[in-house]
């Protein structure tokens, strides 16, 4: 029996609510959210970007931890729909890359080379402040309906809440602290991916999967595990040596 989207939506929001009331890992949560976006909105890939105070974009999470998608984000530092969305705080929806090739030439070229023909960007917004964007990449030119956009924006709002939820937010300066925490966590995960990929002779993508599975199986926060791996802490010995799974 096929699961209806309404059912999926309900399940997703129950999952989200369960996570947000708990002591959760923000980057891990954003990854889950990106995966749910792909399922619920029937797109090829989804990614969440955060923008720091200096205007630099950071890839915070993606549905598929592949370098290709991250590269797209990087290229956007120049220009692209996600940048436009972050700057203006308004959604960019159903941006056909073939039709908009002149508007964002480098982005359009890179995205099409990766097999994406349309892109949507929804702002992560807290009142007047934009802290990032939810990006949806489609491999076909199917139109995102108004309902789809509302679902997408709700998921983007959930992402914003997850970043800001660990403490209540009253002032702009707290926002800086929360953003910084999320970005630091992301950097630790990248460093840990590097350490693990070198130790285990695997790709950085495989290293991320391994990290995430290990955190899940041992009920650890992803960023805590990443810090232990990056520091070469003894608690991560099994994972670094590969003595507990078959990937060694």
């Amino acid at each position, binding site marked *: 029996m096929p699961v209806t989207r309404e059912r999926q939506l309900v399940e997703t929001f129950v999952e989200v609510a369960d996570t947000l009331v708990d002591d959760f890992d923000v980057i891990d949560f954003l990854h889950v959210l990106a995966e749910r976006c792909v399922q619920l909105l029937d797109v090829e890939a989804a990614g969440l970007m955060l923008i720091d105070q200096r205007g630099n974009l950071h890839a915070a999470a993606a549905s598929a931890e592949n370098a290709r998608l991250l590269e797209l984000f*990087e290229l956007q530092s120049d220009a692209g729909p996600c940048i436009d969305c972050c700057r203006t705080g308004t959604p960019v929806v159903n941006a056909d890359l073939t039709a908009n090739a002149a508007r964002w030439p480098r982005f359009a070229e890179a995205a099409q080379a990766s097999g994406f023909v349309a892109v949507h960007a929804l702002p992560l917004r807290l009142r007047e402040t934009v802290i990032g964007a939810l990006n949806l990449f489609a491999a076909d030119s199917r139109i995102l309906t108004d309902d789809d956009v509302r679902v997408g924006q709700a998921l983007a709002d959930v992402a914003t809440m997850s970043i800001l939820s660990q403490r209540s937010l009253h002032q702009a300066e707290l926002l800086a602290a929360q953003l910084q925490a999320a970005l630091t966590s992301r950097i630790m995960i*990248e460093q840990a991916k590097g350490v693990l*990929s*070198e130790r285990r002779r695997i790709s950085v993508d495989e290293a991320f999967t391994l990290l995430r599975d290990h955190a899940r199986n041992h009920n650890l926060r992803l960023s805590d595990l990443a810090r232990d791996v990056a520091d070469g802490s003894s608690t991560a010995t099994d994972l670094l040596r590969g003595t507990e799974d078959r990937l060694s």
Partner: protein
Amino acid sequence: MVSDRMAIVLALLERTSTPNSTGGGLSMTACAAAATALGVDGLCAVVGTGAAGTVLAFGAQAVSAELEDLQFTLGQGPTLDAAATGVPVLAAELASAAARWPAFIPAALQLGVNAVFVFPLRIGAISLGTLTAHRAAAGPLPAAQVTDALALADAVTLTVLHSQSDTGLDGQPGPGWAAPATYRAEVHQATGMVSVQLGVSLAEALVRLRAFAFGRDLLLADVAADVVARRLRFDEEDR
């Protein structure tokens, strides 16, 4: 975006703390200019945490030094919290924070300090210390100054990173030498890989990566991409 005032401070830092300069300390001029840009009364960087050795990395006024001493003596305070959590601690009203730091607050108030803002000197799991700003006037640090302070902390982090390493660099630094490039995922992945290849800390691995790029006039991001793609190994190439 970083303010014009802070941009000048960062340029000053870049010029006075190039990889070839000795000591890697920050000049009093840069420190004073940074305090002015942030609208605070004093500023100091503490490298390393705990009893193992607290080093005032640059021109602290007497109050800054005393503020740090107090916290390490009492074992509590915003600087210690920022060091422990790795997240900025922005204590805009010390008078109303007595519940959080009961021993520290009265002592700080007695020094005439009513607001303290601490920014970790940190790149992911590389944790070097803290940058602390203090002010006699209570009240939040405006959003624009928070941005400036984060940019300053990034620049100081790189300066400290290089001053702690023996890895020397050849030649003159090119433009953008001080750019942190911390928004590139590959730089951090490569840092992790190089640390394993060389058996060194993440901090030293990042210094080696930057030195390699610098010495060959390459972009750090390109060198990092080569490492991640396993086109470049440091245990073979960079002895």
